[in-house]
């Protein structure tokens, strides 16, 4: 096997998806097995590629393979070509590795769903699209993967579409992402106009010659795209609703992989952000705001999945923040992206395991004391918990600590926000832990919590181990930094204070956050959410009024506009032109008359028309 076969990575899950979705009922019996085999094959191939790359020199690790010419128009030529390099291979391993685990888990989780085969078809479609997204060597081809994952996300959020809420959430996700697509579309159009191409190689080479205005515009357009896909403020509102999808979907698409595509896009476009401080700053601001906003939302949710979704927003905010800081931060953004992929997938699947044992109840107020009933789920979840808090030696400690450190080195306010966010994270995650696994049991009599089957706990255990040891990517001789340097560059940040002091401060803040969580949610949690709460809590519960804002600013005026236009079109435009047409035809507007016996009139007007042509031509001829 060699690099020339990179396309197989995309083709294998794509073919599997096609078989499952077109094969119909005939594939019901073994559909989930084929569906699970596809990402496993891709993962095995990814590992082979990765190992082969280790043997290559730094320069040889990046290779572009042109499959065929997609199209050429005017002087623009777009190739269907794939790029395998140190950045994309990491994504390949994350997507196929975590993806395979989640496929395996889904065999158990979706066992009783009569549409399980289709579920696996959609998951395979997602894997294929996501791999295309990270392997494409041209921004326009990225767009295909980008929208493919959006489609898979749409189909999977709305998987239980007989529920209105699921159907609405799916549509919302797609439409909000389309707003982000405006950014990506405009970015590619600008690249065509500026460089005559949207291939990575050309754009990277030309970026340094960009005028400041164009560089900033390009950076902002790509940021808009990233905001949509990665649920960053102001396009964050869809992610919480996306939790309507089955839990493995939330783990794979809305935590570990797809929602990090925005971070990928920014890191991949580092040549552009290199030449624009304004757009880079915008990326940092968006990341910082989202890191805090997500954390605050996470504090107020009683729905275990929505609490985790708020957390995902927040953690991606951290990655975005790091990516916005430039070469000092790129490697850490990707590092955190990977460790987050492990521990967040772990916790989402853990949440799914809890729901599985609790008759699909998602309300944490109905949980409590589950550590005694679901031991494996509890312990593996605890690994994820310790990782996201950043307790050494869990993976999150290394990745998040560095982001905070670099943030402080670059800008004190950003650093402070990142530090504060870490404290809030510790608080809401502790709240989640306490409400779910500790305290007194609060479920109804007819609920019988039980541990999930091993096909589900197996992936949990593997992900828990990864949550623990994932930090090795860095502490083993700064491996990830060196690995990514040929793609993203690297600069050592100049720390404001010593790294050790920074680590200690961060740990202290985290422990304070966790301690507050323990104190408040140790016991006496009411089964019903308190109604009379402070405005701050309401603010957080209502997702910081993101939906309310969208509704007031966009939806209602939009509906009003549409309704007005429909009315006008029926009365105004149609009426006016009807009248005009009637006038021309000399029919005084009484179309009714013509509904009977019109054939004759038509024949007459044809004759008349033809006669007119002849007379007109003869007249001209004679003159």
């Amino acid at each position, binding site marked *: 096997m060699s690099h020339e076969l990179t396309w197989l990575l995309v083709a294998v899950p794509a073919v599997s998806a096609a078989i499952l979705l077109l094969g119909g009922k005939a594939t019901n019996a073994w559909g989930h097995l084929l569906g699970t085999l596809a990402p496993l094959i891709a993962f095995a191939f990814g590992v082979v590629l990765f190992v082969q790359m280790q043997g290559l020199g730094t320069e040889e690790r990046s290779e572009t393979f042109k499959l065929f010419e997609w199209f050429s128009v005017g*002087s623009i030529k777009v190739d269907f070509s794939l790029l395998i390099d140190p950045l994309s291979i990491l994504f390949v391993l994350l997507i196929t590795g975590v993806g395979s685990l989640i496929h395996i888990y889904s065999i158990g989780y979706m066992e009783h769903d009569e549409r399980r085969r289709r579920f696996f078809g959609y998951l395979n479609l997602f894997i294929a699209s996501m791999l295309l997204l990270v392997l494409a060597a041209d921004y326009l081809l990225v767009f295909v993967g980008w929208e493919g994952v959006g489609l898979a996300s*749409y189909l999977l959020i709305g998987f239980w579409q007989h529920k209105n809420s699921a159907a609405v959430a799916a549509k919302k996700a797609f439409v909000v992402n389309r707003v982000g697509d405006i950014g990506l579309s405009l970015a590619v159009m600008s690249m065509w*106009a500026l460089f005559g191409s949207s291939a990575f190689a050309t754009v990277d*080479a030309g970026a340094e010659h960009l005028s400041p205005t164009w560089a900033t515009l390009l950076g902002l357009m790509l940021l808009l795209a990233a905001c949509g896909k990665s649920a960053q403020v102001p396009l964050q509102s869809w992610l919480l609703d996306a939790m309507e999808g089955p839990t493995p979907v939330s783990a794979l698409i809305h935590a570990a992989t797809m929602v990090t595509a925005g971070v990928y896009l920014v890191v991949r476009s580092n040549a552009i952000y290199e030449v624009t401080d304004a757009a880079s700053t915008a990326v940092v601001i968006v990341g910082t705001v989202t890191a805090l906003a997500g954390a605050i939302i996470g504090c107020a949710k009683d729905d275990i999945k929505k609490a985790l979704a708020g957390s995902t927003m927040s953690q991606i905010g951290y990655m975005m923040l790091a990516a916005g800081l430039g070469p000092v931060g790129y490697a850490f953004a990707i590092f955190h992206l990977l460790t987050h992929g492990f521990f967040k997938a772990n916790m989402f699947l853990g949440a799914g395991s809890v729901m599985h044992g609790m008759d699909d109840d998602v309300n944490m107020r109905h949980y409590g004391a589950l550590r005694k009933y679901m031991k494996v789920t509890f312990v593996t979840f605890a690994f994820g918990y310790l990782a996201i808090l950043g307790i050494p030696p869990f993976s999150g400690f290394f990745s998040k600590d560095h982001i905070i450190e670099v943030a402080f080195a670059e800008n004190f306010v950003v650093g402070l926000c990142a530090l504060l966010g870490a404290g809030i994270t510790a608080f809401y995650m502790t709240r989640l832990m306490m409400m779910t696994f500790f305290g007194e049991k609060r479920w109804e009599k007819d609920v019988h919590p039980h541990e999930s089957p091993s096909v589900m706990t197996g992936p949990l255990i593997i992900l828990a181990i990864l949550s623990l040891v994932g930090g090795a990517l860095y502490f083993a001789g700064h491996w990830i930094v060196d690995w990514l340097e040929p793609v993203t560059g690297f600069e050592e940040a100049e720390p404001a204070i010593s790294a050790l002091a920074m680590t200690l401060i961060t740990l202290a803040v985290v422990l304070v956050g966790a301690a507050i969580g323990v104190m408040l949610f140790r016991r006496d949690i009411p089964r019903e959410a308190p109604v009379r709460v402070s405005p701050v809590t309401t603010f957080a519960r209502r997702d910081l009024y993101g939906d309310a804002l969208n509704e007031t600013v966009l939806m209602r005026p939009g509906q009003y506009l549409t309704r007005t236009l429909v009315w006008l079109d029926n009365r105004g435009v149609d009426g006016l*032109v009807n009248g005009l047409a009637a006038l021309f035809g000399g029919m005084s507007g009484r179309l009714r008359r013509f509904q009977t016996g*019109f054939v004759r009139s038509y024949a007459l007007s044809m004759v008349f*028309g033809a006669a007119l042509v002849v007379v007109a031509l003869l007249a001209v001829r004679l003159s």
Partner: protein
Amino acid sequence: MNIGWLTLLLLLPFVGAIVTMLVPRAKALLAKQVALGFSLVTLVLTAIVAIGYNRNGPEDYAETYTWIKAFGAHYALGLDGVGVVLVVLTALLTPIVLIASWNDAQNGRWSEKSFFAWILGLEALSIGVFAATDVFLFYVLFEATLIPMYFLIGGFGGAQRSYAAVKFLLYSLLGGLLMLASVVGLYVVSARAGDPSYLLSDMMKLDMSQNTERWLFLGFMFAFAVKAPMVPFHTWLPDAAGEATPGTSVLLVGILDKIGTFGMIRFCLGLFPNASEWATPVVLVLALISVLYGALLAIGQTDIKRLIAYTSISHFGFIVMGIFALTSQGLTGSTLYMFNHGLSTAALFLVAGYLISRRGSARIADYGGVEKVAPVLAGTFLFAGLSSLALPGMSPFISEFMVLAGTFSRHKVIAVIAVVGIVLAALYILLMYQRLMTGPVRDGIEKLKDLNVREVLAIAPLMVLIVGLGIFPKPVVDIIKPAVESTMQHVGVTDKAPQIPVTEGQK
């Protein structure tokens, strides 16, 4: 005398129409089979022509005979890249429509066989329109297409079909009348220059004063804008498409309306290049309005077929925008768009038709939860919808993106506003899907049958092409390319060079 390939293409469906009508009334099935047979042979022949054209170029297919010597009118047919694409689209959609509409004409005003015969007649005339290289011949065929379409709408549609048919006719006749004035005007110019000739190749060389050119341009442009249809001349389309059978709507929106945008490229840009450039700002703004207005109106519709009709108004806005952006990306994109729109709208109309025929209602509010009882129907509908919203990976994406990028390179503001259309497209398609297909199963839906083999067979080729040309559009793009190059050259415009050219060596 040798019969030319194009004449054969034109005659075959015409003969088919006559033969279909000659089948005894009692043998409706036989008549339908005959019609389908003729349309399939035409498709095979068209494929041969298209492959030959690709290999040998246009020379082999040009036919010119003097028709009315006094007027300088000829029976002249020929192909260029744009024409080939549209002839292929016509030959492709006709059999698909016949298969999909197999049982749709049973309750018409006239016999079932006449429905099939009129469709073949329309196919013949449409091929003629796309192949005509004589302005007079084009005009005659252009007007003649109204006849079969009038009978198809007025004879086999919904309750308001007569009203819709008359409205369609009046709008079209009005446009045709103004075009006629310009056609006559062209004769005058041609006669003054020497021997009058309506041959396109001769007319393209005519020298016109600025004013003459602009007036004549307006006559053509108005007719094409009604046909295309552009806001504010669009209101006939929702009525016509809403009342006609789904098959008729496909032919109307998929093929007949393309005559408008086709005419803009071949006749407006071809005969009046300077006037076309002069009109660019106004046309672009109208196109932009069409894009957004059509999409907003689609969102607000309560009837499935009218909704799809409004989406087409938005799509035609994109096509016109690409044409008048006067860049190779815009023109190529628009031509490709015409083809892709034919595929996606056909799929959307036909699947919507399957749905409507089952429930007996086109009101969106009468549906809900269809996915649960008829997953294949819902799945194909979603597929068609996604191609209509130009999902990347499907063929319409490439054409829409080319149009936008081509417009962007010259008219940034227009393109930036038009991009909003992609969000609106997602809204009108997914809102409709949500209302029809998802949620709890509504009363009257429980027993809905899923698609049968015939129905799947009709739309499967469309789906294969939509995906296939999304991944590998090169064959079609390459056919279009020379035509676009010569049009650009004729109008006298060139693409803007990239601001920061990156040479191969720099990479």
